[in-house]
């Protein structure tokens, strides 16, 4: 790989910032030790499989722990037209609801949101 120069770094910063700020839909699963211990890996794999199966246009991403360890696995969902929210204590059941209600029907899921991160 090419070694970066200071201006490369600047360019890369701008380019990747623009792409990550874009309108793309995504689901982010907290995959630190606390999340994994609470079952995040299963949830993550479930999303990948289901999205493929249902042919949904949404990206499944990983992230670290956001701090609310008591509510792991945490899943943040950002879908155009809805404010991004974080679901806590997500299991396959909640994950299904997220896909069916939130992602497909564009409605937030009751009783699962942890609005704790400001």
């Amino acid at each position, binding site marked *: *790989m*090419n*070694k*970066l*120069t*200071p201006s490369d*770094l*600047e360019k*890369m*910063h701008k380019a*990747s*910032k623009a*792409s*990550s700020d874009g309108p793309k839909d995504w689901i982010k699963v*907290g995959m*630190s*030790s*606390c999340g*994994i211990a609470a079952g995040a890996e299963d949830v993550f794999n479930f999303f990948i499989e289901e999205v493929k199966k249902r042919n949904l246009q949404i990206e499944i*991403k*990983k*992230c*670290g*722990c*956001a*701090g*609310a*360890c*008591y*509510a792991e696995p*945490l899943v*943040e969902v950002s879908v155009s*037209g*809805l*404010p991004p*929210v974080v679901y*806590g*204590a997500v299991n396959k059941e909640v994950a299904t609801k997220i896909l069916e209600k939130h992602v497909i029907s*564009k*409605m*937030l*899921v*009751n*009783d*699962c*949101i*942890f*609005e*704790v*991160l*400001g």
Partner: protein
Amino acid sequence: MYTKVILVKDTDLKREDKTREFYTHLLDYLRGSNLHAQIQVVRVADIGVYDEGLVLKILPDKIVYCNVQDSDIKRIVDSTLDQGKVIGDLVFKPKAKQHRIVLRNCGKINPESIEEYIACGGYLGLKKVLGELGQQKLIEEIKISGIRGRGGAGYPTWMKWNFAREVESAEKFVICNADEGDPGAYMDRSVLEGDPHSVIEGLIIAAFAIGASKGYFYIRAEYPLAVERINKALKQAYDYGLLGQNILGSSFNLNLEIRLGAGAFVCGEETALISSIEGKRGTPHPRPPYPSVKGLWGKPTVINNVETLANIPAIVSNGGKWFAQIGTLTSKGTKVFAVTGKVKNSGLVEIAMGATLREIVMDICGGTLSGKPIKAVQTGGPSGGVIPEALLDTPVDYENLQKLGSIMGSGGMIVMDEDDCMVDIPKFYLGFCVEESCGKCAPCRIGGFQMLVYLNKISEGKGKLEDLEQMRRLAQAMQKASLCGLGQTASNPVVSTLRYFETEYNEHILNKHCPAAKCNSLVTYTIMGDKCKRCGLCVTNCPVQAISGDKEKGYLIAPEKCVKCGRCVDVCKFKAISKK
């Protein structure tokens, strides 16, 4: 398509949960106003506000109303939702807010992607350091920021760097201390796992500051995921030329490697850590010479904690002044705490220094899970002390916590309610230190052990009042005569509980009674005849057949057989078994 979302949650713990009821009322009103197609109402599991009655959060406006009544529905819908006006008397005024510097990217970016880190401004600090700042100005900037070591002792970071920079040596080292070992503390693990590049960038900047060309991550082996993520991140940084020769095209070279700690708590102490990296037994050594002058392999070495390093890129990017605005007079910036114990929301909290303990525990973490009153908060792990509820309004900074007989420590914060015994708690912490003492120095090795013997005696109801004096005497010897921080502070949990909860010790000693019903030897389990419905569940569940009787006469627990496992209390559906 909805244009707005209303999140609702009843946060009043003293009554039946009214969330559903309110949700229905609100929904009905919206239907009546024909707004139900534009506004979605959602019940949430946690709304991030506690003990403020019914709480509403309107998105995307982020308006939060609290202590909302059914009667407020009309004006909320009419003025706020319809006309966009904020209703002043309902607005929730947050007492405490998290302030995220260290955790700025945690939970946001993919820790395995350097691109995402760069997208968030990553490595721009390093670019600034190499390009415009240079060594001297960098250290000046860190000095202005006022940041102090986050590992516990709070030594000014710039001074460490400056000492090491001033020593002439062909070889210097930087080490990231990621040997986080306090029970209940995992801030560093989270940062390493969630934002590894911020720590790497911090370490590169530290290396540049002192002129080091080699550095180590000393990570405990019990953190395999952190090791894996740092490993990946290091590889990415090498690939991008952010490590290795001529970093970002400059003349600065640095190589970083991982060293695994074998799980000894004392290896978090910097001289012991150095011994461990050198392949020797991890025991502390006298200072001076300080590592900044004579450290790893006898060369000037700067050792910084993970959290300190994660702050560095932010300080460099935003300037020392920016950082110095946050926090208190002597303690700048933020601190990450791992709040655990009897708390509702256990997890990581990053607050500006100066926030009070009460704000952290009550407002951010939602108080106790049980709803019972808080008895005390323990900070600083085994080196810290307990702070009683009455003092929770103390603003958190290095000096204040020390005045209270605790320490900032690395950031473990354990919340205790009335079910926690103040003889049992120090027993746990001291037991930890006794186990983890490297064994080198007599006051720590034997003093801690003897003190634990007294604590055990007291918790078994065999203590005497003189034992408290002996414990104080031991504490003084350990504090003053131990070589390293472990021994010097190991008695803190005991000393602070003696300071604030001596009556509880006396209760154990004089009345052979544990008020929290925690010390097993002093606890008796009794079946309360009036509450017992004679279902017999306790009998079948008792593992030692200590419960006898029948449906006619009722049941009795034989104290000589009972092993106080608590199984009967757990299974009893009628709360008929008392534990006193």
